[in-house]
């Protein structure tokens, strides 16, 4: 059985020999290099983009400016508010104002320096709360209060809930903008042949790219072909649509020559960010330790363009309540325009910010009330059969088990860790250790569709056509295991093809940890269909009706007789046999009340941390971390544990290190020296993970790509308070913040 086996990733050899064909490697005949010219001011009327000198520069083939775009030259996955390049106005530093295609990158860069721009500056606003003031500058006239999305949840009587509470807690938690920082930058290439467009993209949602490009250029979706090679990391930053409209528009002016644009690291920081968030939680508790009501107010800084935020702001609302039994909940989740780069999905999308808030507050409440934080959570955690704040009844939820598993794994550790290895000199008495934990609940995509096609060839190989993007998470390997299992063939006969929208069937997106679950279901359905076709074809050969036949071990079997799949094809003179499967859900919430069904299943994870705080410097070292997630059924244990591990390491970045710092809208740390991401030295000294399955291990497959990330920040903040008694409410938890809090506490 291929499911449940820790097989290596299918293309492991390519991965260790540097042979993976990432898009940055793409070379096409006559390919041009593209370079983007960007706005130097945060908010202005764009008076002039003068290209005459640049046009004459050596090697320049085409220049794209706003003048080349028609009145419809704007795009967006939900609100078409973003120009392919700016036309008459710029709204953030780094916004594209022109693009150049040239024979070489050097030539494009030299020509870029010759483009002259002239601006008439406008007042700018960078903070979401400031953008809500009545005198704040307006970014888009269609949204005069700068709010482009307001998602609402209305469940029960919140005022009555507060009235019956013994204590009411109100706390505000902040998260700064951060960068997804995949080591492979954003990259796209495009080529036109007449009215047909081919785009090579490092996008997580190829069919979304296709739709948006078809809308933009007013051509049929089928006239756009999107090919996605393996990604060098995505983490949500390559979700949705980013570079493709600009690269395609630039390629339209080259007389059919392809153009490739690879962003420099600094450009990444003005291309997409994690939403900065300000989250206020007001929570009522009875003295018996039960929760009575919660009021949630969230301001998401969406940046200058809505991008994916109109989809993410409502999801963030659902993800802000927490996995607790709360009879009355009122939530308001606002997406706000500011003059910063657009924000988008960031691994653990929106949950990273919201779990930081609600799991920090659970510890604040427990400490103030004198309760054990674990018991307090256990008392209030939702169980299967109970109703969530959206009104939906929960099935197959294991928050209690996840939290118990993480805490047990941490606390049952057999031995104390020795003093910190490289920094123990002179530390005696300075290092204070503490433990903390957190649990989270995250919805996946409510409305989406995945299709898969399986093709059995007469040589016995099976091609799996899928538009799921392989970005390191091992999705293609897991899907191949599911296909092998469902078809009852060995894993090695499976070849995964795609994504290529000309060859592979529809898929909504590779995000929200949905692929192994939802594309996996489509693959299973396709396998069922293919086996049925084989049985139908085998019937006359084995002289048995379909009810007497079964597909097993690559054969169609009857009582006492069997024929190999490949022989079934041969006997019918077929080169190949194909079948398609689909999985789709159409779930949604009422826009006024947030009531309905938000997700086909819930993401569930927990974490427990042991930290050491250096009381002289404020530095926090994560000694141990245990992560637990509910997987339903584990397809590949080793790769699944690697997802848990990766989530923890990734989550340590925004917890302890990462913040994009803006000064007047200008990123001041757009490089991996000043913006640090976790290295080996930042990883916990001991990291372990637990994967929980449904009883018997035959439950539905749940996504596991993000579940153990959102608990990281609050688990560590809770451990810090456990160690030294200070509470940090703003990420990242830098040594400076901890030291300042320690000094304030000491008076």
């Amino acid at each position: 059985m291929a499911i449940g086996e820790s097989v290596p990733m299918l293309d492991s050899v390519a991965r260790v020999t540097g042979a993976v064909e990432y898009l940055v490697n793409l070379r096409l005949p006559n390919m041009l290099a593209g370079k983007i010219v960007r706005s130097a001011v945060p908010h202005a009327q764009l008076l002039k983009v003068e290209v005459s000198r640049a046009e004459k520069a050596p090697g320049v083939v085409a220049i794209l400016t706003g003048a080349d775009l028609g009145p419809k030259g704007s795009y967006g996955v939900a609100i078409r508010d973003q120009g392919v390049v700016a036309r008459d106005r710029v709204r953030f530093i780094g916004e594209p104002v022109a693009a150049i295609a040239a024979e070489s990158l050097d030539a494009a860069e030299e020509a870029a320096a010759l483009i002259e721009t002239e601006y008439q500056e406008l007042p700018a606003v960078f903070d979401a709360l400031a953008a809500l003031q009545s005198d704040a500058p307006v970014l888009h006239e269609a949204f005069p209060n700068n709010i482009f999305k307001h998602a609402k949840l209305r469940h029960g009587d919140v005022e009555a809930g507060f009235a019956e509470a013994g204590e009411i807690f109100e706390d505000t938690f902040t998260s700064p903008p951060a960068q997804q920082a995949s080591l492979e930058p954003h990259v796209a290439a495009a080529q036109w042949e007449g009215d047909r467009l081919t785009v090579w993209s490092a996008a997580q949602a190829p069919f979304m790219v296709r739709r948006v490009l078809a809308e933009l250029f007013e051509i049929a979706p089928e006239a756009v072909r999107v090919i996605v090679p393996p990604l060098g990391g995505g983490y949500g930053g390559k979700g949705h649509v980013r570079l493709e409209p600009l690269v395609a528009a630039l390629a339209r002016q080259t007389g059919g020559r392809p153009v490739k644009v690879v962003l420099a690291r600094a450009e990444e920081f003005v291309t997409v960010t994690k939403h900065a968030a300000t989250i206020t939680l007001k929570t009522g508790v009875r003295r018996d330790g039960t929760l009575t009501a919660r009021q949630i107010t969230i301001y998401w800084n969406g940046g200058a363009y809505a991008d994916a935020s109109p989809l993410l702001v409502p999801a963030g609302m659902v993800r802000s309540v927490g996995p607790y039994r709360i009879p009355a909940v009122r939530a308001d989740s606002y997406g706000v325009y500011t003059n910063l780069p657009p924000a988008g999905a960031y691994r653990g999308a929106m949950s990273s910010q919201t779990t930081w808030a609600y799991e920090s507050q659970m510890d604040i409440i427990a400490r103030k009330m004198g309760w054990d934080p674990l018991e307090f959570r256990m008392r209030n955690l939702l169980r299967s059969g109970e109703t969530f704040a959206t009104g939906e009844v929960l099935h197959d939820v294991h928050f209690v088990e996840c939290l118990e598993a993480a805490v047990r794994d941490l606390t049952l550790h057999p031995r104390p860790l020795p003093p910190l290895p490289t920094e123990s000199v002179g530390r005696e008495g300075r290092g204070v250790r503490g433990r903390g934990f957190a649990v989270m609940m995250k919805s996946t995509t409510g409305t989406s569709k995945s299709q898969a096609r399986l093709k059995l060839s007469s040589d016995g190989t099976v091609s799996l056509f899928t538009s799921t993007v392989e970005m390191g998470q091992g999705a293609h390997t897991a899907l191949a295991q599911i296909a092998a299992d469902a078809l009852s063939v060995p894993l090695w006969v499976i070849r995964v093809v795609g994504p290529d929208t000309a060859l592979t069937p529809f898929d909504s997106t590779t995000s929200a940890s949905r692929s192994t679950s939802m594309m996996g279901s489509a693959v299973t359905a396709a396998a069922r269909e293919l086996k049925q076709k084989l049985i139908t074809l085998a019937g006359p050969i084995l002289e048995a009706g379909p009810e007497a036949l079964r597909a097993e071990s690559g054969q169609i079997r009857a009582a006492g007789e069997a024929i190999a799949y490949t022989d079934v094809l041969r006997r019918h003179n077929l080169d190949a046999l194909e079948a398609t499967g689909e999985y789709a859900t159409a779930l949604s919430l009422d826009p006024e009340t947030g009531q309905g069904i938000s997700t086909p299943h819930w993401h569930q994870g927990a974490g427990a941390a042991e930290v050491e705080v250096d009381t002289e410097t404020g530095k926090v070292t994560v000694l141990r971390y245990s992560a637990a997630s509910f997987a339903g059924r584990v397809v590949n244990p080793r790769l699944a544990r690697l997802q848990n591990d990766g989530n923890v390491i990734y989550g340590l970045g925004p917890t302890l290190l990462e913040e994009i710092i803006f000064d007047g809208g200008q990123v001041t740390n757009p490089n991996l020296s000043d913006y640090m991401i976790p290295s080996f030295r930042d990883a916990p000294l001991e990291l372990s993970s637990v994967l929980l399955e449904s009883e018997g291990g035959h439950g539905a497959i749940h996504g596991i790509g993000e579940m153990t990330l959102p608990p990281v920040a609050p688990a560590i903040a809770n451990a810090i308070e456990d160690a030294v008694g200070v509470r940090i409410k703003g990420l990242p938890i830098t040594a400076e913040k901890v030291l300042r809090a320690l000094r304030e506490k000491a008076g």
Partner: protein
Amino acid sequence: MTTLKVNGATYEVEAGVRTLLSVLRDELGLAGAKEGCGIGMCGACTVLVDGQAISSCLMLAAQASRREITTVEGLARDGNLHPAQQAFIQEAAFQCAYCTPGFVLSTVALLNENPSPSADEIRDYLAGNLCRCGSYQNILRAVSTLSRAAS
């Protein structure tokens, strides 16, 4: 012209002021080394020059002239993966693998210098290579299996 000795072969290239990384990728078609940050912070462009791990985005090709350059493409021998590559597969020490050639080459350099590194020495030596997918735990396992200290 600059003479580059890469993976045992000798090339004459018009390097100018280009980096070693640029010449390897764009002239010689050796695309295993990647640009991640462009400033020597991430290690995705790591190659070996005379056995030492260096950031090829910071070295001019001319500086590497006539020295022994090894890229990830040069590690396999007679169709067999290098033990470091095998260990990375064995321990699932990668996800997107954009950083993996750099990690593998840094591992080779580490073991050249110190055949028996402790876990702490491994963490220290490899701290200049970044893995955004967060595979450090499995990388530590993979390199540990190669350490003579393990056996």
